């Protein structure tokens, strides 16, 4: 993956597939310590200890069409190659928590990339689920909640192209603001 935001898009699909009604995506940057935390927390069906072990193995998948599943292994590798860390914890019936920590000054750090596009895709293509996106840079924080947007839209689909363009612009502008303060 060329951008971490693409890994996030990919991992969030797992939460959706796990039937999560609410998924929280956290991207927290610490410019002083030169670290980046990416967290994806869902209330989906969860996994057993054995499944948690298996998903970190590239030659495991729950899919029956083919024998590989690359999503989690690629994300784990992206974190560990910077000298960071990766954890995945899960409880059946409760949900799954994926956390990746990156050292941003590592030569092997993959750029975060276009998070606005990732969040827009996740939120607007999964109308029946809720998402909270929390983006922070040091002490500045921006929070985006799909429930709040849906309340305003009052039945107009999030996948409506004009709505998607607005969502993307809204997230982009508020993220840029974090760096100005």
């Amino acid at each position: 993956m060329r951008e971490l935001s693409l890994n996030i898009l990919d991992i969030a699909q797992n939460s959706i597939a796990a039937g999560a009604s609410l998924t929280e995506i956290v991207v927290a940057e610490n410019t002083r310590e030169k670290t980046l935390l990416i967290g994806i927390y869902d209330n989906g069906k969860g996994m057993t200890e054995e499944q948690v072990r298996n998903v970190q193995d590239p030659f495991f998948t729950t899919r029956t069409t083919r024998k590989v599943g690359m999503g989690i292994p690629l994300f784990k590798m992206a974190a560990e190659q910077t000298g960071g860390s990766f954890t995945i914890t899960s409880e059946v019936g409760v949900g799954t928590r994926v956390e990746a920590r990156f050292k941003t000054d590592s030569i092997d750090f993959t750029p975060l990339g276009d998070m606005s596009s990732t969040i827009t895709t996740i939120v607007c293509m999964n109308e029946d689920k809720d998402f909270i996106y929390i983006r922070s840079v040091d002490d500045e924080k921006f929070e985006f909640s799909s429930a709040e947007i849906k309340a305003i839209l009052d039945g107009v689909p999030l996948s409506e192209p004009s709505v998607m363009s607005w969502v993307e612009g809204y997230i982009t502008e508020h993220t840029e603001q974090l760096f100005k303060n």
Partner: protein
Amino acid sequence: MKSLEELLAIKQKAQAQIAARDADGKDGTRVVVGMATCGIAAGARPVLKALTEEIAKRDIKHVSVTQTGCIGMCQYEPIIEVFEPGKEKVTYVKMTAEKAVKVVTEHLVNGNPVIEYTVGAVTE
């Protein structure tokens, strides 16, 4: 800076469009983008973005864009499928944002599938 008030205005416009669409009673065209690990790694996200932006820009009604998982031909990703009511499905492979724009203008607007981007032409 974009505000929630602005979204309210977009909602009102969209509501009017949806009402007009429903009054027509026509079944819409569905454009489906493959968004599994394979599709995303190959560049599906900019393809999806280009599709929705072009459709919004041209104010095309009767077309919805949705995502799906792995279509099963990972080597040909990004893949998009166009389902038009009463017509056979058209599968486009190895898409880019530029090609997606051409699919919108040629296929969705003018009704002529872009043969050279289809799976049949690429795998020949």
